[in-house]
């Protein structure tokens, strides 16, 4: 019995921590959704682009880890700048659907650019953190938990605290929240939309880089990272498209539920239900709580 409970705990904790990896990807979506009410289809491509650039800097030019990270983050700010200038500003007065279509196009451009610049082969990314159980925890708590998962959890926690402080206590954060509520009213009092867009796309780019590094270390830096966007979708539906805590909690829920279902219910379906169980959960949310757990409710005065 004690062993069963221990096993369940291991599945649960492992799932939760793996879930933070989804949270990291979902965070980037939330940032952009808040400012422009658009689902950014190019977020997956941004993950791929940024981490491939990071690997390229490190492996092709032998740039040290920290410097390569700074360079890649800077590159993502440049990508944000170009996106604002070349894509968003000309579409300033276009409908949200038009912007949505533009993000799909932007995704293809980024994928193409990344592969043209750094090649198409799968790269190994070694962060110096192994994807195997931490011996200390295995010995003392009898839980087998991957060091990479723990790192991802810590990184996600730091990022959410940082973003929370940025939004709550800085001037540009206030501007962002104002734009998220009513872009027209924000521009009527002189909040420059282009600065806000630039901030949001740059922040989403850096978040994409961090998410990409975590996933790259686990699964290799490869084109399949683009499809991470699809994994983030149920996370967003459950957490709410406009909520940063929602992205984190949504990721945790997806991570835990998919692991538990896989282990306990999977055998009845012949296994591998991990791949589709999150979407089933998402459908239930769409039916009964479409704004997600933490999504901003549409406040209506009566």
């Amino acid at each position: 019995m004690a062993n069963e409970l221990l096993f369940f705990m291991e599945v649960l904790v492992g799932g939760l921590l793996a879930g933070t990896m989804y949270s990291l990807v979902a965070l980037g979506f939330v940032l952009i959704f808040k400012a422009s009410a658009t689902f950014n289809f190019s977020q997956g491509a941004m993950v791929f682009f940024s981490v491939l650039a990071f690997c390229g800097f490190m492996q092709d030019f032998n740039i040290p880890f920290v410097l390569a990270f700074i360079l890649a983050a800077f590159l993502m700010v440049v990508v944000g700048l170009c996106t604002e200038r070349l894509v968003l500003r000309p579409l300033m007065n276009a409908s949200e659907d038009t912007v949505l279509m533009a993000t799909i196009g932007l995704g293809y451009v980024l994928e193409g650019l990344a592969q043209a610049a750094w090649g198409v082969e799968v790269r190994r990314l070694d962060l110096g953190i192994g994807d195997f159980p931490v011996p200390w925890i295995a010995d003392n708590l009898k839980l087998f938990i991957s060091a990479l998962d723990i790192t991802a959890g810590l990184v996600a926690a730091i990022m959410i605290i940082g973003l929370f402080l940025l939004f709550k206590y800085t001037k540009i954060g206030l501007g962002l929240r104002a734009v998220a509520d009513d872009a027209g009213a924000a521009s009527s009092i002189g909040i420059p939309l282009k600065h806000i867009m630039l901030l949001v796309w740059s922040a989403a780019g850096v978040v994409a880089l961090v998410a990409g590094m975590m996933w790259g270390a686990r699964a290799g830096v490869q084109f399949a990272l683009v499809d991470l966007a699809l994994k983030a979708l149920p996370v967003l539906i459950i957490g709410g498209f406009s909520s940063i805590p929602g992205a984190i909690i949504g990721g945790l829920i997806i991570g835990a539920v998919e692991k538990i279902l896989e282990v306990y219910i999977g055998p009845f379906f012949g296994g591998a239900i991990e791949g589709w169980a999150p979407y089933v959960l998402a459908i239930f949310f769409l039916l009964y709580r479409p704004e997600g757990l933490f999504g901003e409710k549409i406040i209506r005065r009566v």
Partner: protein
Amino acid sequence: MSDNSVNILDIKNIEVMYDNVILALHDVSLKVPKGKVVALLGANGAGKSTTLKAVSTMLASERGKVTKGSIDYDGNSIEKQNPSQMVGLGMVQVLEGRRCFGHLTVEENIISGAYSRKLSKGDIDQELEKIYTYFLRLKERRKSQAAFTSGGEQQMIAVARAMMAKPKMLLLDEPTMGLAPQLVAEIFNIVKELNQKEGVSILLAEQNTNIALKNSDYGYIIETGKVMLEGTAESLLNNDKVKELYLGISKKGRKNFRDVLKEESLNKKIN
């Protein structure tokens, strides 16, 4: 009222089109003297909001364009400006329907108005205190989420937010829409006070002709995108046609100025 230095706003014969096809304003000319309150009156769809948006340059975001005429603010043409530049020049529009940031607190809403100014935390607090002296009611509710305040409070938030930008000129678009008579009076008292104590010039679009004229220096009446009548607020209040068409003291079945003009030209022909 012809000297530019006397008029903070000078609109000359503008025509406005939406989407290159819909003609919203035919011919609107209008002046706002420095430090005065000017009312722009007319029914729904007459072109009041369009006129204000032409001035604040917010037309572009609705695919509208000034196709003829000129608009001078503080002696300079506004043709090449965008909304945030206009705010920098001291012209702020309070949009129709209040448009508060619902998820922000009352105080955050007001502070967001100072976004375009480079103020320290201390300066902002000082400005806030000054603003609260005009909007006592908002001070009590400073920590509430704006979406949960009443319609009158939201209107006050919108005006207070605009005042944080330290405007020389305010454009108010139907500030009393949907408010109870008592609140309408309260809002107008605040507007009047801001005008007198802060020296803000005001261009006010209203459907509520009576109270708007009572609180203004000068008035313009527009119909279907054209100025039909203008004059001092007093003269408009005593004008028989205004009384009949806008103040509800009706004699015949005439509905607007076009009917009046038609009748007059008919009478001329008969005579």
